[in-house]
């Protein structure tokens, strides 16, 4: 079989080129050709010994654009930002050893948040593997628990199929990161190149169509619901199913809440939207979850930050759970109607089933009355004293108003992240880019680079804090090199805010190591990289400062907002509590 195929390749080559020898490519050239075949024309990376052949080929060509980061973690997060904001597979290229280990945090982040990435890591020569060679680590071993799949390429003949499979696995089913480890000698070896059309994987076939019987059962349950709620997550965005979600929600007239990762799939300004749920979700969303009788979960995974104490979670609900990953269903919470499938396809099938006329949709106006009653708590409200310190929420409120909810917003991790999720009403998917599952401080700035490179003419804001931003601050240099006009909104409260909040609540306000001493002058720091730096200290300056920041369209602006160090995120469900046990202030 193989020899026949090789022969036919040679025949094709002979037709195209009378000299078959000219068609032999080395591994590094093949690598580039494979990226072009996959349409992966933006690569985030950092060179090193094991990938020098590849970098040499990158240097010789124009089709693949390489973005040089300042730390490999930044490359992985930038590729995540690129992937999350476009839906395409993000590509990373790093060297062996420390290049690979530095990328691991980003790979784990992508794994937790189901971000499609292909991460190419250089490896020492095959003859040296296992010898503790210079810059050798067992990359496949180290990354195994935090990848969807990984592949060590042992000879050049395996390279095209490995890359084909990597892109296929990363981007289909429940997306995730795939690591392809390429020893240096593989990039030197030559062969006649052809790119496989089919990944040919008998053991990997994601189920996309929902089971018809289960869809009928779900429709029956929906038709009988008195207190229904739709709880949708990042899976809807990954699947590109936001239109189906909107149609389904409008058709049923049910209230909808989104997870942190699901924000933007349903317009945040819509009256059917009852805000985010979970640990820092709205009072009405969590109360509605708690009292619901039918819970329709779509592309969400019942994470502990959503459910709180599982014993007290949704005690009255029959659960319909739609997910493309069977292992997400009934992992944490038992589903009564499990439906394995792609969110978009299953929602379409549900819409058809409900429109069929066999079911009449329930009148749930008493339920809506109750929800509107809960919503009166206005649980995300805050008070800004115009003579006092700047409230972080006040900055975000104005950012929202001045951008009309249309900006791409990345964030780091902590209080500021929760406030963006609460206050910025995203109306489109793929605009809210944050690290949910792994909770990676340092994510925001490199992710914003990936977003800005994918959308050069759009406004990209990175909301961060003075602790998070310092974890990947070196990327200010990358932003300078590629002229990325990101707007950094630094909510500087001189504390690791969320750590301090937990210490306030659960450790009698003993602030063990949660303060940020010896902070740099962020204005000077930004200026030293060639960016614009601004410091805003008074509430009355917030609005005009934001106008100025947003008007500087072609410059990166680092806006250092000095905010109230005592502000905490409310509501809050304490660990071990249920949805009806929120702390409101």
């Amino acid at each position, binding site marked *: 079989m193989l020899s026949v195929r090789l022969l036919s390749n040679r025949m094709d080559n002979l037709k195209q080129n009378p000299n078959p020898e000219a068609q032999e490519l080395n591994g590094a050239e093949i690598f580039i050709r494979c990226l072009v075949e996959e349409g992966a024309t933006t690569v985030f990376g950092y060179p090193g010994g094991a990938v020098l052949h590849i970098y040499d080929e990158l240097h010789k060509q124009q089709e693949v654009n390489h973005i040089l980061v300042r730390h490999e973690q930044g490359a992985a997060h930038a590729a995540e930002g690129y992937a999350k904001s476009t839906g395409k597979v993000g590509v990373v290229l790093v060297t062996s050893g420390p290049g690979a280990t530095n990328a691991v945090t980003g790979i784990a982040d992508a794994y937790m948040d189901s971000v499609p990435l292909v991460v190419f890591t250089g490896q020492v020569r095959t003859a040296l593997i296992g010898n503790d060679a210079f810059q050798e680590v067992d990359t*496949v*071993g180290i990354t*195994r*628990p935090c990848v*969807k*799949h*990984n592949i*060590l390429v042992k000879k050049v003949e395996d390279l095209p199929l490995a890359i084909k499979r990597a892109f296929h*696995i990363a981007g289909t089913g429940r997306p995730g990161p795939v690591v392809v480890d390429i020893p240096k000698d593989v990039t030197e070896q030559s062969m006649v190149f052809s790119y496989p059309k089919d990944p040919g*994987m*008998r*053991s*990997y*076939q994601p*189920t996309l169509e929902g089971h018809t019987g289960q869809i009928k059962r779900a429709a029956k349950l929906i038709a009988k619901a008195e207190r229904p709620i739709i709880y949708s997550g990042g899976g809807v965005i990954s699947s590109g199913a936001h239109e189906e979600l909107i149609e389904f929600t409008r058709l049923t007239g049910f209230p909808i809440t989104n997870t942190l990762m699901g924000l933007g799939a349903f317009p945040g300004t819509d009256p059917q939207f009852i805000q985010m749920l979970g640990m820092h979700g709205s009072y009405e969303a969590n109360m509605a979850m708690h009292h619901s009788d039918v819970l329709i979960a779509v592309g969400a995974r019942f994470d502990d930050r959503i459910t709180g104490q599982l014993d007290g979670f949704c005690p009255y609900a029959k659960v319909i759970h739609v997910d493309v*990953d*069977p*292992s997400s*269903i*009934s*992992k944490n919470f038992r589903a009564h109607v499990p439906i394995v499938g792609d969110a978009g396809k299953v929602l379409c099938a549900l819409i058809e089933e409900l429109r069929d006329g066999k079911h009449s949709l329930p009148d749930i106006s008493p339920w809506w009355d109750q929800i509107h009653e809960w919503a009166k708590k206005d649980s995300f409200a805050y008070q800004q004293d115009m003579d006092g310190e700047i409230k972080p929420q006040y900055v975000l409120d104005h950012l929202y108003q001045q951008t009309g909810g249309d900006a791409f917003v990345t964030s780091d991790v902590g209080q500021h992240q929760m406030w963006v999720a609460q206050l910025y009403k995203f109306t489109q998917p793929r605009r809210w880019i944050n690290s949910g599952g792994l909770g990676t401080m340092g994510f925001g700035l490199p992710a914003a680079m990936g977003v800005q490179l994918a959308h050069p003419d759009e406004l990209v804001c990175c909301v961060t804090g003075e602790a998070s931003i310092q974890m990947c601050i070196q990327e200010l240099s990358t932003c300078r090199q590629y002229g990325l006009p990101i707007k950094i909104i630094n909510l500087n409260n001189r504390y690791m805010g969320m750590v301090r909040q937990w210490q306030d609540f659960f450790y009698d306000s003993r602030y063990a190591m949660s303060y940020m001493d010896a902070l740099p002058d962020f204005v000077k720091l930004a200026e030293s990289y060639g960016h614009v730096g601004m410091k805003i200290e008074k509430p009355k300056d917030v609005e005009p400062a934001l106008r100025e920041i947003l008007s500087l369209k072609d410059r990166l602006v680092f806006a250092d907002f000095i905010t109230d160090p005592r502000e905490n995120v409310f509501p809050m469900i304490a660990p071990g509590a249920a949805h009806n046990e929120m702390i409101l202030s």
Partner: protein
Amino acid sequence: MRRILAVLLENESGSLSRVANLFSARGINIESLTVTPTPDETLSRMTLVTFGDDRILEQITKQLHKLVDVVTVVDLTGQNHVEREMALIKLRLRDEGSVDDLQRVNKVYRGRIADVSALCYTSEVVGTSEEIDAYIAAMGEHEVVEVVRSGPLGIARGEQALSIRQNQ
């Protein structure tokens, strides 16, 4: 509850550690694990024994399926199946006269003597895990110097055979 799973997986380097890693990452113990190539040399077959309730078993089965190298997973626990384990047991007999004693036990458990030296006998015995437990217990006053067990192998009874799943 004891569970026995049969798994077909791609015969590639790293496949075994993916499975082993999955169990340790999810905090579930593997009681025993055997893995060997199959007549189709692109596949390996694994028999795995673990403990857990229905929820854990459902989750672990799904997680195994999720591994890209895993082709098929079957829970043999719930179905009629044949299970066999092999053990080699090195014994120091109480006295020379007790060989008859060992042969009597061997007769009951279909064991045989695989090796003899001046001081020790090594028995081999094949059976269910319980039979092997019972055989070892039946050694009574003979000193058990060393035991090595293969871990169980499992196969479904009747015509049903573990094969490559054709789409889901």
